[in-house]
């Protein structure tokens, strides 16, 4: 025994199906409405009702949270009926679907970039629309997300430094790349300080003979930090890193001096030994048969 809906779905009464689809949509029974609209979209090709039908079709998908298909339908609508009274709304919702599909900052941001493009396109089309203000706000949110992603991923290398010292050097490179990519990033102070910190940690965990140069680099980054953010809350922390770096240089020099001293001592001893051994080695040489 088939339900009334099933009977209607299988029937050929298109206008009744259309009426029922709209009724179901208004009743918020979107999944049933979708089934009817899907079937009707093909059949209404090239008719006057197609415009309204496609409008409802797109919104049904949107209500069902199938944003990927919905945004395609919205775009299709706006492209087919550019003069429709719904065109602006559909362009906006098409872009908004991308916005809703933009994932967490720690995942692939393909949809975020597409959302920014789509929202920007909307603003370009309808700069005076009330929705343009909202669209601009969404763009700002998405940019924020991209900044967070860049910062988190660069910071990851600093976090991993404890496991492998080479990551500290990677952190410096990655953090600087973030600066270049997002010059006015909101995390700029943290980034600049983290560069000093990463370079300091890198130097600290290096062999003594590489330390001075690397600490110097850290002090260089400290100077850049102070120049950019003289009034930052993080100044005291930066200063501490600079002092530690200076101390590091002093201790590295001391170690190197001591090593040099020892090496000289051994060299002197070895020379002394050689003089004593001179006679014995000569004897040995004679003993060795030559070919």
């Amino acid at each position, binding site marked *: 025994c088939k339900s009334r809906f099933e009977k209607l779905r299988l029937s050929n009464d298109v206008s009744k199906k259309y009426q029922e689809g709209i009724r179901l949509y208004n009743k918020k029974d979107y999944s049933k409405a979708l089934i009817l609209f899907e079937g009707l979209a093909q059949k209404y090709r*090239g008719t006057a009702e197609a415009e309204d039908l496609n409008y409802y079709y797109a919104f049904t998908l949107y209500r069902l949270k199938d944003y990927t298909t919905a945004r395609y339908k919205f775009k299709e609508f706006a492209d087919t009926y550019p003069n429709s009274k719904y065109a602006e709304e559909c362009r906006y919702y098409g872009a908004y679907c991308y916005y809703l599909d933009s994932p*967490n900052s*720690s995942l692939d941001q393909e949809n975020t970039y597409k959302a920014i493009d789509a929202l920007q396109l909307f603003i370009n089309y309808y700069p005076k629309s009330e929705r343009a203000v909202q669209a601009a706000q969404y763009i700002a949110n998405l940019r924020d997300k991209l900044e967070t992603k860049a910062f988190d991923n660069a910071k990851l290398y600093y976090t*991993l430094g404890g496991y*492998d010292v080479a990551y500290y050097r990677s952190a410096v490179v990655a953090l600087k790349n973030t600066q270049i990519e997002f010059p006015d990033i909101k995390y700029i102070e943290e980034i600049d300080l983290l560069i000093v910190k990463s370079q300091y940690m890198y130097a600290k965990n290096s062999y003594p003979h590489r330390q001075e140069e690397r600490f110097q680099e850290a002090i260089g980054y400290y100077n850049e930090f102070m120049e950019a953010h003289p009034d930052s809350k993080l100044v005291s922390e930066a200063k501490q890193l600079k002092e530690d770096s200076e101390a590091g240089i002093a201790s590295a020099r001391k170690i190197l001096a001591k090593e040099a001293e020892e090496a000289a001592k051994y060299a002197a001893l070895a020379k002394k030994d050689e003089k004593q051994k001179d006679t014995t080695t000569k004897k040995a040489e004679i003993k060795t048969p030559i070919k």
Partner: protein
Amino acid sequence: PARPSLTVNGLDLDYFNPKEYIIGGTTLSGSKYTDKEVIIILSKLTRGETITLPGEATANAIKNLWLQGLFDDVKLNISKIVSDTVYFDIEVVERPRLTAFEFIGVTKSQKTDIAERLQDKAGKTIINDNLYNTTKAIINKYLLDKGYFFTTIDFKSKPDTNQENSVILQVLIDKGKRVKVHEINFTGNKDFKSAKLRKFLKKTKQQAFYKVFGSGKFNKEKYEEDKVKLIAKMQENGYREAAILKDSIYRYNDKSIGIDIDLHEGPKYYFGNITWVGNAKYTTEFLEKVFGIEKGQLFSEEKLEAKLRGSANGDDVSSVYLNDGYLTFNIDPVQTKIYNDTVDIEMRIYEGPQYTNNKISVVGNTITNDRVVLRNVYTKPGEKFSKELLVRSIREIGQLGNFDESKTNPIPKPNAADGTVDIEYHVEEKPSDQVELSGGFGGGRVIGTLGLTFNNFSLRNIFNGEAYKPLPKGDGQKLSLRGQTNGKFYQSYSFSFSEPWFGGKKPVSFGLSAFTSLQSNGLSASSSDFQKIRLNGVSVSLGRKLKWPDNWFSLSHAVNLNQYVLNNYPGYLFSTGTSYNLNLTQEIARDSRNHNIFPTGGAYLKFTIQATPPYSLLNNVNYAIASDKLRYKFTEYHKWKFESQWFQTIATLGSKQLVLKAQAQFGFLGSYNNAVGQSAFERFKLGGDGMQGFDFLQGSELIAMRGYSNNSVVPLGANTTIAQSSGSPIFTKYVIELRYPVISSQQATAFLTTFAEGGNTWNKFSDYNPFNIRRSIGVGAKIFLPIFGLLGIDYGYGFDKIPGIPDANKGQFHFSIAQQIGGFN
């Protein structure tokens, strides 16, 4: 020359002099079924708009109407022009619309294949000659590729009652017989015998009475591939000029065809002088050594390519450079001189700059968080580019188990200006969660199992409602839950959680697991005949990857606490009492297998020590006279295990590799104190499928050995009942296995195996003899399905009788299922 112009109603439209007009109106003629207004709207020639004539707008109008797929012809006429106002008339020719195809005369799977190839037509176009022709051509080509040479296709249309002016197109296909290859003839070959050349055609075979399977059915696609392979094979043998001059396929009779191939063979060539130019970083001597081909060797383009660029294990010339930052390195082997049968080669090298990694990013991770991938990537910003590390990174990403390994693709984007390279790791998520839901029949009762494994869990988000899709995912943690019960007789529940990067800073894995299981004879607890064994346990583990001796090593520690409660339970060293087992496990492993499911190279070594505190040395129990209760209260033992697996590709057949797996395992359970005796628990049970099934976690370790029934390989002269239910303290097992993949796709990996095994158990170390083993041979098949894990069926034949267990050896079937990859022992 005359200017192109358009004369309409005496008015001249000049292409060099377009003018603006106002549209005064548009009419539509020739339409019967379509709505006129809508067509006019779609043409965008709306009344009142301005239009440039001649111009793009008119062309677009026609294009837009064509796109509707409703008309056989569209014409745009200017009906009149009154001063600056233009009137259009759109003239269309309507045809019935095509709503669907119906294919008659082909199999169901062919129907879907054909429908797929025609999918842009149904419901979107009209019926005209063009449709007939393209449809016919597409179906013909499809069937030709499948080996049907003599196909006839007819059309019949019937009106679609659902819609006016619509038609369902019936396609009547007479496939005819699938043709076979009667003969393959070669001409122009001197050094190669025709029979040998026929062998080079792997998929195109002559008919022959002895070929029972796949006897020479012809497939055009495969034939084209075979031709390329034929030439490649000849060139591999030094015939660098080899080529097909002409080939023809002709009709032999109704059922078969013949193939003639005319070859140019040319002489056999050898390598002559090899010179190197353009190398600054590495010396010629060094490069010659890496290259390895010397003057006088048989000339082969394939070998040359392999030694310059292609080898898998990275001992080619390109790898030397690519592992040292020379990303844009290029080498061009130029054949400078060919005399008689000798080819001189000049290696022209372009070294380019040494590149440094800059930005490393992940693309395509729609579920798994960036950091989970990035922390496993070996190419770091600020380091020299290295192909080897790139390859290693792919392997590590693959081992996460969340991505389709065949689609993990690193894309280096070099920036020549500053000598840096950005690397994008493109990945594609795959379903990694596994569900086990089964009902089985065991011990005369129905037994139900529910197991869930989430391989990409996120514990952080467990209280974050938004993250449930349908579970919080993306942190690469693993959570599994499993329950198995048949009511009163048997119940078992387990839980485990693991985090590969505990704290997020170092690759220190953390694991926590707990289980409880109960087995009883089903009587009420107050009954005097009540028998049961209950096991409870928890364990905590920490493990980490090592950087020394090399970075394939890993080390792990675990603390386990198990409790065994026995009540009249037979088959153990004691039957009533409670025993505790608190132990510390240390494990060191080296895993260099190149693939999770079907390794084609690499090795896996594992050494484990497990020990309990030596209670007997610390307490004052006199074990010689102690009661069972006291004696077994605290289990004490030390256990040593070693396992090695080794994989080697021994032949490559097309894209598939025949792999040899060799495995050796050894286990020893020792006691601290002779007076205490050997532990009743934690022994080894050898034989069978190695599955933790009905006797899940009975305080012993199950080791598979095909060709013998479950747990049946017991020491000579042992009490078979006890040895079978509690296991034996010493075992050794060897496996040698040949594996060949039959399916290797994202959806499934399946391979066939043939194996020989040998193994045995002993009660005392003084009896131990690694060469005194029980042997078996057999064949099997395994299939890995992402959602089920690895399923296997093996047939083994055990040669050696086990005294006291009559059905232990001879032919044995083994079914196995492993949820975790590598779960087979």
